[in-house]
């Protein structure tokens, strides 16, 4: 049972990790805790659903369409909402993302209704691989694999491309980045696009094990946020590790200690981390040099 719990913990943890990653990417460059992240992922998943069931496109096209949609959605939200705010405080930004969250939820509810839908993303969750007593579904393997690959690509992107370097520069000092010719606004819009894309991947993998409705990403968002805080908000690797850790801790806690408080563990972790290591378990503290 223990090994099984670790495996399922890693599997759900990789979804938390993707959400945490998506939140950290935005937080890193624009210092915005994006509470609309879950809904952006949810509506992208609905787009895949609509493409496949309503418009009868093959699965591959539906998935690509949804991912493309998520990229554009991220850019559009940054361009139309965030950029318009004049010298926003952190509270303004939070309120804006909550507003966006409600708008998207409203649109999804209006367009597709609140009734649960089956997301027909192959039937991978019922195809199983057995290792002795331990069972893992094809979908779990695919989720874990995809999230690892995606994380690696993002790491390479941030560390070894000009765009990635520009993003890191924007995060560390916006004014200096501007002076050096980096088009900060464009970078930020692109960051929102990438982040939305990562979230959409999480949504697409999560919908088949849950049911598709406008509240699909409610829990993954909160857990992703907890994982990001655990990992230190600005550290991508930290966010990922935070996600895996949270998935495993939660599962063990639920099975051995209490199911009733399983969901609460995430919040206890947030409080403890903020108490003892406010910058997160894995974040490096950037000291601003005068």
């Amino acid at each position, binding site marked *: *049972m223990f090994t*099984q*719990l670790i495996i*399922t913990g890693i*599997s*759900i943890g990789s979804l938390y990790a993707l959400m945490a990653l998506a939140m950290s990417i935005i937080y890193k460059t624009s210092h915005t805790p994006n509470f609309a992240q879950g809904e952006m992922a949810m509506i992208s998943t609905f787009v895949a659903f609509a493409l496949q069931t309503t418009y009868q496109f093959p699965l591959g096209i539906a998935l690509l369409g949804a991912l493309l949609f998520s990229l554009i959605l991220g850019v559009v939200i940054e361009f139309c909402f965030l950029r318009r705010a004049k010298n926003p405080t952190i509270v303004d930004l939070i309120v804006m993302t909550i507003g966006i969250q409600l708008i998207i939820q*409203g649109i999804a*509810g209006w367009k597709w*209704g*609140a*009734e*649960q*839908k*089956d997301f027909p993303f192959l*039937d991978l*969750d*019922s195809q*199983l691989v057995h290792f002795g007593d331990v*069972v893992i*579904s094809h979908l779990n393997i695919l989720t874990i694999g995809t999230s690892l690959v995606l994380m690696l690509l993002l790491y390479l992107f941030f560390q070894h491309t000009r765009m990635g370097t520009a993003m890191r520069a924007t995060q560390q000092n916006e004014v200096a980045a501007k002076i050096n010719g980096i088009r900060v606004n464009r970078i930020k819009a692109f960051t929102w696009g990438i982040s939305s894309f990562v979230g959409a991947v999480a949504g697409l993998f*999560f919908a088949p*094990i*849950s*049911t598709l*409705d*406008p*509240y699909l990403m*409610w*829990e*993954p968002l*909160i857990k992703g946020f907890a994982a990001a805080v655990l990992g230190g908000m600005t550290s991508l690797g930290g966010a990922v590790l935070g996600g895996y850790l949270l998935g495993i801790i*939660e*599962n*063990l806690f*639920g*099975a051995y200690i209490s*199911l*009733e408080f*399983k*969901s609460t563990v995430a919040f206890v972790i947030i409080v403890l981390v903020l108490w003892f290591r406010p910058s997160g378990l894995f974040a490096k503290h950037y000291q601003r040099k005068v």
Partner: protein
Amino acid sequence: MLNKSLKVLMVLAFLLLAGCGGGSEDGGSSEVGVTDTEVVIGSWGPQTGPAAPWGAVVRGMECYFAMVNEEGGIAGRKIRFVNRDDGYQPARTRAVVKEMVESEGVFAFCGGIGTAPGMAVKSYLVENGVPWVGPNTGATHFAYPPEKNIFAGQTPYVDEGSILSQYAVTDLGKQKIAILYQNDDYGKGGVAGAILELQQHDMTLVEKASVELTDSDLSSHALRLKNAGADAVLIFTTPKHAAIILGESAKIGFQPTWLTSLTLADMDLMHTITKGLWKDVIFANFIPMPTSDDPLVQKYKAAQQKHYPEERWSILYMNGFTTAELIAEGIRRCGKDLTREKLIENLENLQDYTVDFQDVRNKYTYGKDNRQGSRSVYLLKCIDGTQFEKLTDFVESDIDINAAIEMMKSGI
């Protein structure tokens, strides 16, 4: 010129006053929300937000009253049905119910979705003596202790818990019963009913796995149920959680007999969102299935297709019809002389009243100290999305409901 129109106005005002006076003298319109041609019925339910699927019940009521009005109304009065979206938020329920009573002049309420929203308006409706017939919840708060103006219709969750466990033990010979329950009055009602029933068989629940409304990963729940060795598992959760637990359990090779509350009787939906895993699930119900060929069900369905063709003909939607039947019967029995007092009296006198379905006939009985109309459900088994097998007739729960309420109070 001005003087003349003033005179006309005065004459009109006088006539109007006289008209009103005359009306109250012959008793036709002395009651709130009742005139000789109209009676105002109110309801509420979520049309937006996470609980919005339940809102179909209220829209079903709307369709039922449209059907009744088309047939000429009741005792010459058309029903004006007012309903509000409360988003399943108790604070909003309070506001919209107050508004409906005070500005719309609602005569009585029909249905009303959910336990928490209902609790938010219970004392207000009791204080104001507004009749409230058939709250759409199986919580025991509305009939125990009985309130003069509240008539509960839906079978309590505790009774469902009892009937389902009894069936699992005596009819299916199951030895180890477990439950997956939502951590609120709904789920805990199921737990209390199951525990009390199992006590009569010298048994106890082998596992109680609680689900929070916001949970979406139930893999550790599935493992715990499997580890307890359960051969039958009761489900008292939302459709979403029921779908997730069936998926997770299938994955780890855990295949007990599943038995569910009537809140999961939307077989069509469940079969779809579980990708067919709903096959063989046993579920409680208290109204006919919407796909049945019962003539009255067909009549309801025809009304839906005529008045609201864009709606899905589902069990929730049809539940709106059956909820409205109860208050309509009360109003019918009052005849011309419709007052709140008379409505309450007529409902109180209902004995073994059944809606006119062919073979699914739930009996409602009220009395001076009894405000719970029925404590029975019948059981069905899902064959596939549309096909079902009727397993039992209506079974009445035999547990002491007050003991169940005590148990819930002291904590499950």
